[in-house]
């Protein structure tokens, strides 16, 4: 099923929709996280749902208001909410409270290699393995995002004016250094090889630092804020939302500076709102502002197939199971598609 870029997608459902679970929940989908071959989804009514192959998913009441953020710690789900709670939820749905900040929101959560992090306002709360009380890392402004490097030895904290990079030395003390760039920085990620740090900004652009020599540069040209971006598995490309195309910046060799990105176009000139790499492929899933989702090969843009037709609501999350067999798509209006990617005969 190849999409003809000169034609609007057909109104009827795709084969992926026909064979999958197509749920109309009516509750905004905030984000999702992959744990092995299960996918946990956070919603705007404080519930989460855990999707496993061949099982139905029941809502689990986690937060009082909104699940603001969702991530994982090993095989557990971790979430933060506007009820000020930082929660750990097992894949069986058992909830335990890690911390409670009252009327202050828990904006970001992450974990790696035994270290557990949540942020509330200007502070990072960091639980080291085996410790009950968190270490508090203070910052001068509200935190826009947090990310561990692949080993969990460095923690990047984006904020107004740049990124604070915390590094654990061999006596397990955390020391900070600053990567500065004017403006407010939101989401932050490391490249999978830990060579680069990338942030999205309040302005319609991304910024990156090469950590080896702290050189930095801006990736701009977007029509809106870039809210979703990710490295495609082999780190060759950084794929980004925020434009009518999925914009893929080359991060091989000398990096993106002075080079043109590859732009993958889609039907109908809609805004790209979410991008997700296909595990172990040089391909990406792209979600648009009308709810449609496409799978494209980065260097063969003619090879694009439609996964979900439009729902009239912007795609807010796409997750693919670790084995690459199933995909979950969610949007702002609360529509969820949970389906297998491969046809039976190709399995």
């Amino acid at each position, binding site marked *: 099923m190849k999409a003809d870029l000169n034609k609007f997608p057909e109104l009827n459902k795709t084969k992926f929709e026909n064979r999958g679970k197509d749920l109309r929940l009516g509750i905004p989908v905030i984000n999702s996280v992959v744990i092995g071959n299960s996918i946990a989804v956070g919603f705007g009514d404080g519930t989460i749902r855990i999707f496993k192959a061949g099982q139905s998913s029941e809502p689990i009441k986690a937060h009082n208001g909104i699940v603001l953020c969702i991530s994982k710690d090993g095989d557990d789900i971790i979430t933060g909410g506007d009820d000020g709670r930082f929660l750990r939820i097992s894949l069986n749905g058992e909830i335990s409270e890690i911390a409670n900040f009252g009327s202050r929101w828990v904006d970001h959560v992450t974990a790696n290699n035994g270290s557990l992090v949540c942020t509330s306002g200007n502070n990072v709360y960091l639980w080291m393995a085996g410790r009950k009380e968190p270490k508090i890392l203070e910052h001068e402004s509200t935190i826009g995002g947090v990310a561990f490097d692949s080993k969990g030895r460095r923690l990047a904290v984006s904020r107004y004016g740049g990124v604070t990079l915390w590094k654990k030395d061999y006596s397990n003390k955390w020391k900070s250094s600053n990567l500065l760039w004017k403006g407010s920085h939101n989401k932050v990620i490391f490249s999978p090889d830990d060579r680069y740090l990338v942030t999205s*900004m309040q302005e319609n652009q991304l910024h990156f630092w090469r950590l080896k020599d702290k050189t930095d540069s801006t990736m701009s040209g977007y029509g809106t804020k870039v809210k979703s971006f990710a490295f495609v598995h082999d780190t060759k490309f950084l794929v980004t939302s925020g434009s009518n195309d999925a914009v893929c910046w080359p991060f091989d060799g000398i990096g993106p500076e002075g080079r043109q990105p590859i732009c993958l176009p889609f039907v109908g000139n809609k805004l790209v709102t979410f991008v997700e790499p296909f595990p172990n492929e040089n391909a990406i899933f792209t979600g648009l502002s009308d709810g449609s989702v496409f799978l494209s090969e980065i260097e063969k843009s003619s090879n694009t197939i439609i996964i979900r037709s439009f729902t009239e609501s912007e795609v807010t999350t796409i997750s693919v199971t670790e084995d690459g067999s199933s995909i979950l798509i969610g949007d702002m209006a609360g529509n969820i598609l949970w389906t297998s990617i491969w046809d039976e005969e190709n399995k």
Partner: protein
Amino acid sequence: MDSNKQVPVTVLTGFLGAGKTTLLNRILTEQHGKKYAVIVNEFGEQGIDNDLVVDADEEVFEMNNGCICCTVRGDLIRILSGLMKRADKLDAIIVETTGLADPAPVAQTFFVDQDVADRTKLDAIVTVADAVHLSSQLTDHHEAEEQIAFADVVLLNKIDLVDESGLEAVKERIRKINPFAKIINTTKCGVSLNEILNLDAFSLKRVLEVEPDFLESDHDHEHDDDVTSLSFVSDSPLDMEKFQDWFSKLLQTKGQDILRTKGILDFTGESDRYVFQGVHMLMDASPMGKWPEGKVRSSRLVFIGRNLENMNLKEGFENCKSA
């Protein structure tokens, strides 16, 4: 963007002790059948506890877009974007600011951030003022002047504690700074919520209803307030090109001193009325339909700000008239 889908946001300003907390408690506890979220500041007044109260740090930051006076409230962008993801829709959001905060970055947030502008709209700036202490606050703190200058509604509270002449004097002073704010007299913030919420004061349609005293200009500078207002009216049509040229240069160079502007303009050769309003150098403008039949076409322009007398506003406006 469909304005019905945008949640109205009321900005509530005023000095500590003026009565903001009393008002917020009323909004949160009265049986009005509506769902309101309130964003409060951690340095603000205590004593509000409710599921829909959000703690915020007033965090002003500059946009890195070359616009020097373009400051926004980063915490508001974060919280408003979060609130818009709620499953249950809010009827309105109220943002409390502390007494010493400049209201401009709050207002500018609604013009500058696309996500905020798409899903919410600035409804009105409501300033709670203490009838007893406002005069001395206006003299001592320029923030008090700004809060009056930006206001669409001034809730003049504690009027039971001043005599009639004192009340008239303080109202007179408010009108000098801001001739188009609606002044509501109250004791203990006893005002119907309909008079302060859902006013749509920032819509261009509302500008058409603004009728300040354009002709009355007895500017006795008895208090010598830093922030003042000036208004101009012209019955002869303006040249659009000349006006745009003058006005955009004016906002670019003096935008930091010009707090609010509103205007209805009659351009030569145009059958529609042009309406605009601005906060500092950010402006919203649009043609707003034909002139009403039988009414004289005229242009009117109001400025509220500092050092207005040094901007040659009258001369600049006169020069925009079609030759």
